[in-house]
């Protein structure tokens, strides 16, 4: 018999401490993975915020003194109006007037117009927030040297005005209003379409369907649809809504001329199909969670299946279904790829007027501004990202509150 033995006593304790040492090293490694995940999130948020605030060095293309002797900031509303009337081409002035009567515009809006159209801003350089804070003196010196005529100001690209200004081809004057409205219209249509169908399908699968082949296929199919890349949904929307159903989605069958299939309606329906599987799966979970005793009680007093569902199951499952819908809305607001395919407009500055309008959306703007070369576009992209993230945060916080409120009730 060879030397078969186990270490005992002290030698055992020694090997045990060796085992603990290895365990601690690995535990530290696992923890560091978690740290990396947290740091990535911090880095991302920091990167975005860093880009939305900072020093801007800019020059006026046209000297303000060309238009007025007084300093710009001292001009009254009427004076601004006069300057615009005199110096803008009649075509440009009429176009602006048609969008919204010039008389009705506020002083600050007219001021911005003067800056945008007449004086015109040429942004020379931008700096991130960290740079602006830490290297303030250095930057000032650099500017004095490189662009002696330029003004330097610490700008917050994210302002309340940013939210209410429409799109513009100039980064300094662009806002996300058009995009936010487009997103809201699109999500509205998507939910209007997907919520009833999704809940209906969930009710069917949970309350009515027996465990036969066709229903198992339906279930597997829904699970698979949830995993299809969003770009494929975009292609589907392009082929069906934009192209095949063009008379419907462009509104031409309703008498709207001069339009094509790339409308909010197409986008909304496409997004609706995309979030449909999520709504179904979520609603199924909510309905599954309704205690069976509730149904049995209803059946016991002679209710039909639909009466039971409508009067007992659905009200009980409603909070869960609502939470799921909010999550679907979050998803729809953040998706970009399908909208690109379905034909979000690259430049549109008019607010959407109805389902047959051309559209843009918040993530589309972020995409377009991020892919521009000039850094000032990156700055407004960052601002738009902050708007988007706050929007999503509010939605998800509402969903969590709703879920907790429900859990407390039961």
């Amino acid at each position, binding site marked *: 018999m060879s030397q078969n033995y186990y270490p005992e006593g002290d030698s055992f304790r020694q090997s045990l401490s060796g085992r603990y040492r290895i365990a601690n090293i690995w535990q530290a490694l696992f923890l560091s993975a978690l740290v990396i995940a947290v740091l990535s999130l911090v880095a991302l948020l920091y990167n975005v915020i860093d880009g939305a605030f900072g020093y801007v060095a800019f020059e006026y293309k046209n000297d303000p003194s060309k238009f007025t002797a007084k300093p710009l900031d001292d001009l009254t509303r009427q004076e601004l109006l006069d300057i615009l009337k005199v110096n803008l081409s009649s075509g440009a002035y009429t176009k602006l007037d048609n969008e919204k009567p010039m008389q009705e515009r506020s002083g600050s809006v007219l001021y911005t117009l003067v800056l945008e159209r007449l004086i015109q801003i040429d942004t020379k350089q931008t700096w991130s927030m960290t740079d602006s804070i830490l290297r303030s003196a250095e930057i000032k010196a650099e500017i004095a040297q490189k662009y002696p005529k330029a003004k330097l100001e610490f700008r917050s690209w994210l302002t309340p005005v940013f939210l209410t200004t429409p799109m513009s081809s100039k980064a300094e004057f662009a806002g996300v209003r058009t995009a936010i409205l487009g997103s809201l219209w699109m999500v509205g249509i998507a939910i209007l379409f997907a919520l009833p169908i999704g809940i209906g399908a969930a009710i069917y699968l949970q309350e009515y369907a027996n465990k036969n082949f066709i229903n198992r296929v339906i279930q597997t199919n829904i699970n698979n649809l949830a995993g299809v890349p969003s770009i494929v949904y975009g292609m589907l929307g392009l082929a069906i809504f934009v192209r095949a159903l063009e008379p419907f989605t462009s509104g031409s069958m309703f008498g709207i001329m001069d339009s094509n299939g790339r409308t909010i309606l197409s986008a909304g329906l496409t997004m609706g199909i995309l979030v449909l599987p999520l709504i179904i799966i979520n609603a199924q979970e909510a309905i599954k969670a309704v205690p069976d005793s509730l149904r049995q009680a209803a059946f016991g007093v002679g209710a039909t299946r639909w009466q039971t569902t409508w009067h007992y199951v659905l009200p009980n499952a409603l909070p869960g279904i609502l939470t799921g819908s909010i999550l679907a809305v979050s998803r729809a607001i953040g998706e970009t790829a399908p909208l690109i395919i379905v034909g979000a407009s690259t430049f549109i500055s008019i607010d959407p007027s109805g389902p047959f309008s051309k559209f843009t959306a918040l993530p589309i703007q972020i*995409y377009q501004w991020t892919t521009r070369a000039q850094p000032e576009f990156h700055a407004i992209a960052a601002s738009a990202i902050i708007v988007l993230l706050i929007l999503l945060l509010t939605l998800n916080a509402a969903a969590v509150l709703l879920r907790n409120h429900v859990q407390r009730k039961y």
Partner: protein
Amino acid sequence: MNQLDLSKKTRIGESVIQTLLFIAGFLSIFITVAIVYELGKEAWLFFGNPDVTFAKFFGTTTWQPSIGQFGILPLVTSTLITSFIAIFVSLPLGLAVALFLSEYASPKARSALKPVLEILAGIPTVVYGYFALLFMTPLLQKIFGEQTVEVYNMASAGIVMGIMILPLISSMSEDALSAVPRALREGAYAMGATKFETSIQVVLPAALSGIGAALIIGISRAVGETMIVAIAAGSGPNFTFNPFKAAETMTGHIARISGGDLSYNSIDYTSLFAIALMLFLVTLVLNLISQTVINRFRQRYE
């Protein structure tokens, strides 16, 4: 004396409602059929074009349909490389996070840390694209030098994709680890094993198929991802294996081309659908495999 009529009454309302609900349920099948039909129809037109041959499609390395170049390889290699980088980042990190959360973290720590992961999972991909272009690329350039790392490159996109997929892998892996029965752990502890030895040498192998399913879903997500690669990976097909170079992926290509002017009967239009069909089939197969693996895993422990 009143007759007790217990016979089945035709309730028209009920039947109508039941039919409506069935239609709603069946609609999902219709969607899948529509996807296959529409993608297939245009792909058929694409492959039906006399200039397009399978040899060219899978064999050549230039993709420019407008001038008769139909080699899909550059788009495919870019997709594979970015996805591989994404998995290379997300699998070890995701698994490590899952192990830490399920085996070591206190319930308090877990409830504090899981929201972080949920936030990471909920950030729109276009925001990740911004992060890849304006943070990761400069970072890589600082580390590896601006000569090596191009402004658009597969590595940035791949790494950021990995960060995006990390929560998915970690949550599915955590589910798999938690599903391993207590009895198995206790058996190991009773033999004088430390917590670490039990987690790694007993629990992890038991959860392996669940983790495998997570990996497959992760791959599927990476392959289908569009915005991160559209913004950061490159805007032109490029057949290269160097991750620091710009190379457009299948999804990025579709996004770029369809964002421009596209006439419905052009070879560009039909070629997009051929690519989309490939994407759909690949992700479908991956998702089906993952579902089967998960079902078998659940059967084992329930």
